[in-house]
């Protein structure tokens, strides 16, 4: 699937998948995240603004990326989740380990995202 990449001024790597994150595209994202961590990017944001649909394979790719980023001493955060993505995150309680942030720029800036008022 199409994966748009950029780097924020503070060095955070941003990956923005475009389309549906299902068994079709999830392996691409999983590979890209592994590659970023291997290249030394340990702070990663997955920008979900262009993801119209996410299923359990997509979740698997995010969790795999989260684990490797944390093992490398960094973190993986998600931003700009759409309605269906939020539904799935909530349903699986993954919103507790992958808290949705408003934007990619704010993902690592917000120290305590829970204070935003949402969960």
């Amino acid at each position, binding site marked *: 699937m199409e994966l748009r990449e950029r780097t924020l001024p503070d060095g955070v790597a941003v990956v923005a998948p475009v389309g549906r994150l299902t068994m079709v595209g999830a392996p691409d994202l999983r590979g890209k995240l592994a590659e970023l961590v291997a290249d030394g990017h340990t702070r990663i944001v997955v920008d979900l603004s262009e993801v119209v649909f996410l299923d359990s394979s997509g979740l698997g790719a995010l969790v*795999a990326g989260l684990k490797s980023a944390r093992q490398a001493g960094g973190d993986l955060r998600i931003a700009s989740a759409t309605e269906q993505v939020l539904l799935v995150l909530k349903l699986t309680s993954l919103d507790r380990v992958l808290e949705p942030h408003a934007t990619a720029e704010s993902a690592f800036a917000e120290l305590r995202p829970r204070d935003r008022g949402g969960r």
Partner: protein
Amino acid sequence: MADMVARTLRITAPPDDVDSVHQALESVWAVVPDLEPRDRMSIETAVIELTANVIQYANRGRAVSFALTIVVYDDRVEATLSDSGEVDDVGLHSRGMPDAMAESGRGIPMIQALVDSVEHRRVEGFNHWTLVRAREAARDSVTPARGMPSVSISGVIDEMSRQRALEELGILDTPPEERFDRVTRLATQLFGVSGSAINLIDRDRQWSKSMVGSFPSEVPRSQSACAITIETDQTLIVPDLSQWEGHEHIGIPGEFEFYAGHPLYAPGGERIGSFCVFDASPRHFSEREVAMLRDLASWVQQELSVSQELSRAAEVQQGLLPQQLLSMPGWDIAGMCLPARAVGGDFYDWYPVGEGAAFTLADTMGKGIGSAIIAATVRAVLRSAARFGDVTGAVDAAAAALTGDLDSTGVFVTLFHARLDMDTGEVTYVDAGHGLTFIAKQSGEVRRLRSTAPPLGIDIETEWVAQTESLEAGDALVSVSDGVLDLYAGVEEALESVTSIVMLAESAEEIVDAMRARARGVAPDDVTVLVVRRDAA
């Protein structure tokens, strides 16, 4: 259900994948603009999880085909997926979400969380999944919709598998049989009631396999008490039909006022009918009587299973007949085998050999299963023997191989075995005690081929001698089993009739069809016909 929108999609993955499902779903959503986004997202997510699961696991990673039907009702959305996967152990049993750091295992718990009911059944080698979600607008705050039964699609699947199981039994519209009639007779005597029946529920009618009492053997399903019985596994007892709430129209005053029935099952467990007793006036039915009724029902049940096993055996035996036409330009070949019972001791066979083909028609002494087992053995032995040598060699090898078997079972087999050279029309054959093969010349002359040897299984030293005949353009060779003779007053009349059939028919198939029409339903013995016809010049 005032309005509903239904869409069905067929998928084969690969090349299709979950994207194909997304596209199909979008076309459904487009025509139901009033569907809440929450409902749409939930059912779509559940369907995609299910689809992904089926694609990945249902056929152990191999290609899998499935049909997906989405039905949007006023109050709920149903998705039914039927896949051809081999795997039936789907692990639907409730398990929670996996650990947060797990990379997989969320699919099934997600489906369960997204919809109100998930059903899986395996019917006829297909997995049928039904997901139902009550629409937000229809959710009642007092009674939660969780676990709501799917009333439509799974009901249809139930009825389909029920109907299929009933048809597979091959019992519908068959003549009365003593093995069933004795049970209904006994029941009327035991219970002292006016009637008893074995009723099968076939689409929109009730058909009685056995009936004591003055009712027609066929009534509309809507008038049938047994159609109500098959809705559950319980014995249904209605002491007074006039007081039967919701079904007052079923009773007939003075004729049908008491009913007790117990469901009958197909081998796969589908409720296909009911064994019942009834009376002209209301009646009490004691616990002891209920137990007796169940015992009699299980007796009927056993008889039904025997039917099923026999019809399976019949299928297998029909499968042993040649399924493919021989490709022989200038020749026309057809055959049929109509056993008097479910299975029989006759068979015919053909297969290509060299520049032509080998043909066999054999008749094992007796009828029924024992003969069928021997017939299958003879067929197999002869087929393998035919790979070596000529006609006599094949019959000789087969006879030698079968001697022991035929001797120990005390059975003999008559056999016509021939080889045809398709270019010259020369037929070389051995007739072992059969003597029912004719050559009908185009001129109208008919000649019976003489049997030159005793049947297989007769314990004498035999030297098999091949005879030779020649088929000219327009000639036909017709070999029949002795069951055909039973259809006529004698050999002469049979010969005459067969001759006129051959003369009038345009093809080998027509000859066979005419014989089949003549034999159907009246033949006391197995009837088998083999026709080898050379095209007219």
